[in-house]
């Protein structure tokens, strides 16, 4: 199919491009990116186009990438399936997502990895890149077959919500992964320190809820940075939430260690005061922290200490959330709210639009060694089209995701995804 996207503002930070361009797509590939007055080199005329998209007043950026989602498939399809997850991702502007391995069964076998990729391929368009487990069953007792898993399509390795407690296993995992130049993703949490249900502080004390101190995260961030220095393996730190973690990452980067980090929209948007009404939609792991932490996360994003915004999209049904706070499951969904919350940082002048695009597309794609996302001739047509002027209200009811667990229902936002294009395929 030939697609012409006219009159949009193309923003590609890799080329410091921020200007009005027409994009010509044929099949899966970008044929040309031309300014409006350029009359030569036009690969096909307007008449020859199968589809013309008028992007006047809209921006076009490299396709967004979310490297931290939970699709619950196989095993808990009542919360989300690969299909509904991919649809939610496409509506959120994402061309690629990386699925965490805590499915049932755990993604610790090449067959499970292949199942996820194949199921996504027959879905709406957004690509799924499975993250496989570090240890069989994420039980922390041995190594998975990282080489065979990589060959099956695993993009990285993590025990995510069952973090690797044994430092010897983490060391070996990082060393072993280095044999395949594979990425280890660490969910930094000391399980003993983290025996609580919300952030430890004045709010938890007032509410009578067991607290989780910042150190439960930063002790593991520091441990894994030390192991990164020891092994030389690439390390990515998931959903960073505290000021102390940011300091540790800053130190590691200054040392030149191959460490990258992500945070989630809720950590730069909310604080633990969101829990004040015992709202289980504000219960997640790591927990929402204090204003000091939120400000440190914002600062880290603006300085590039944190490289990536990822959602930690964690679907749960009402069964897991309509219960007392102590008993509620951790996690919120994020695919369909992430860009809007990211744009708030741009509106608040914390980030430039180019920085936001780096953190939601360029950087995550680079860390995951995905094919380069560049809006230029010969590159895959993976694009996200956004209208920055539309003001809208987030409505959980209209989500494509199977689940509704979001604390952002009813929030007013500016900026909306209009179209997501994966390999030349219009997803919306």
């Amino acid at each position, binding site marked *: 199919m030939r697609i012409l996207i006219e009159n949009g503002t193309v923003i590609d930070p890799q080329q410091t491009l921020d200007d009005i361009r027409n994009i010509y797509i044929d099949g899966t590939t970008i044929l040309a990116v031309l300014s409006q007055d350029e009359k030569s080199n036009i690969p096909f005329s307007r008449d020859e186009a199968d589809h013309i998209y008028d992007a006047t007043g809209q921006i076009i950026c490299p396709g967004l990438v979310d490297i931290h989602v939970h699709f619950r498939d196989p095993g808990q399809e009542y919360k989300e399936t690969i299909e509904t997850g991919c649809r939610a991702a496409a509506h959120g502007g994402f061309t690629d997502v990386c699925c965490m391995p805590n499915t049932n069964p755990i993604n610790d076998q090449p067959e499970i990895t292949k199942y996820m990729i194949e199921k996504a391929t027959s879905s709406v368009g957004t690509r799924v890149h499975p993250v496989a487990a570090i240890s069989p069953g994420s039980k922390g007792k*041995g*190594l*998975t*077959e*990282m*080489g*065979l898993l990589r060959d099956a399509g695993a993009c990285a390795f993590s025990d995510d919500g069952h973090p690797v407690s044994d430092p*010897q*296993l983490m060391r*070996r*995992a990082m*060393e*072993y992964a*280095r*044999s395949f130049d594979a990425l280890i993703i660490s969910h930094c949490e000391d399980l003993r320190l983290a025996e609580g249900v919300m952030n430890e502080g004045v709010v938890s004390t007032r509410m009578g809820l067991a607290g989780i101190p910042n150190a439960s995260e930063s002790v593991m961030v520091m441990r894994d940075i030390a192991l990164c220095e020891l*092994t030389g*393996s690439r390390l990515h730190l998931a959903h960073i939430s505290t000021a102390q973690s940011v300091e540790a990452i800053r130190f590691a980067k200054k040392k030149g260690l191959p460490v990258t980090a992500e945070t989630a929209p809720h950590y730069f948007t909310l604080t633990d005061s969101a829990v004040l009404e015992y709202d289980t939609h504000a219960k997640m792991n790591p927990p929402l922290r204090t204003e000091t932490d939120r400000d440190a996360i914002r600062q880290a994003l603006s300085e590039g200490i944190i490289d990536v915004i990822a959602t930690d999209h964690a679907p749960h049904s009402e069964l897991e959330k309509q219960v007392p706070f102590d008993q509620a499951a951790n996690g919120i969904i994020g695919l369909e709210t992430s860009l809007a919350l990211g744009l708030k940082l741009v509106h608040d002048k914390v980030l430039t639009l180019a920085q936001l695009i780096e953190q939601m597309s360029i950087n995550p794609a680079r860390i995951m060694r995905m094919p380069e996302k560049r809006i230029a001739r010969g590159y895959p047509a993976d694009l996200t089209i956004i209208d920055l002027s539309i003001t809208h209200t987030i409505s959980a009811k209209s989500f494509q995701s199977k689940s509704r667990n979001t604390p952002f229902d009813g929030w007013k936002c500016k900026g909306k995804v209009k179209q997501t294009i994966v390999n030349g395929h219009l997803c919306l």
Partner: protein
Amino acid sequence: MDHFHQKHILDMSSLTKQEIDYILNTASTLKDISERPIKKVPTLRGKSIVHFFHEPSTRTRTSFEIAAKRLSADTFSISASTSSMTKGETLLDTVNTLQAMHPDIIVMRHSASGAPHFVSRHLNASVINAGDGMHAHPTQCLLDLMTVRETLGKIQDLRLSIIGDIFHSRVARSNIIGFTKMGATVTVAAPCTMIPSGIDKLGAHVAKSFEDAVTNADIVMALRIQKERQSNFFFPTEREYANFYGLTYERLKSMNKNAYIMHPGPINRGVELSSDIADAKESLIMKQVTNGVAIRMALLYLLMGGTRNAHSN
């Protein structure tokens, strides 16, 4: 070189290039004794050799026993399970007890790195290290050198690639030192968990990949993957190891048409080597075993002075 002045054979680092050459030459001349109908010479008659094996061993121990007997020495065996050490005796006490019986040579295998060095400081007898912990296995290195020299006519400028668990391997450590000393280039390849820190400083090149190591080699030496290492997270499964670091005949030929295959044994067939490669004409594995007897005969002979004509009946 006329005389051999070493008292002990503890590791490859303490042998000079000339001494190694001398050992290999001596072993070559002694080899034919094992091919005679009467495989015995009186050279070491009246000498007492104790085989002190504190760790399981079949081929090394048998090889030493045969070597000693072919030279007419009297041999005595002590293994960990039958010695007083199971009753709580310290290694030093065991060694002093042995010393009181005046053996001439103690052949020793021990699970602790450095144990033969420790023993050698407390004994009048010569000590031959038959493998200590992860440290050294000099007689294995010498028999490997002999096998390569015999097959390829030289050692200088040859390329040896060692594939497998370098981390735990005393064979790898001794071969890296021994082959490098004799002018060969040694490359190692393994999952990063099995490459010990600083191995490059010992003279080994760390290959970029398994393919690299196999392609650029005159000899490929596979090491045994020990299942028990799985529990310490060095590798996930034998299936994965075989897939990425195991050699099949087809795989070898697709990467390197001319390389020979060696293995210190025992082999895990289907893991580091497939059966078709272990038994192929490129395999020097049986030659290694045969040469092991000759090397050990040479060492026993040289440590006992090497003055008598070893060949006379």
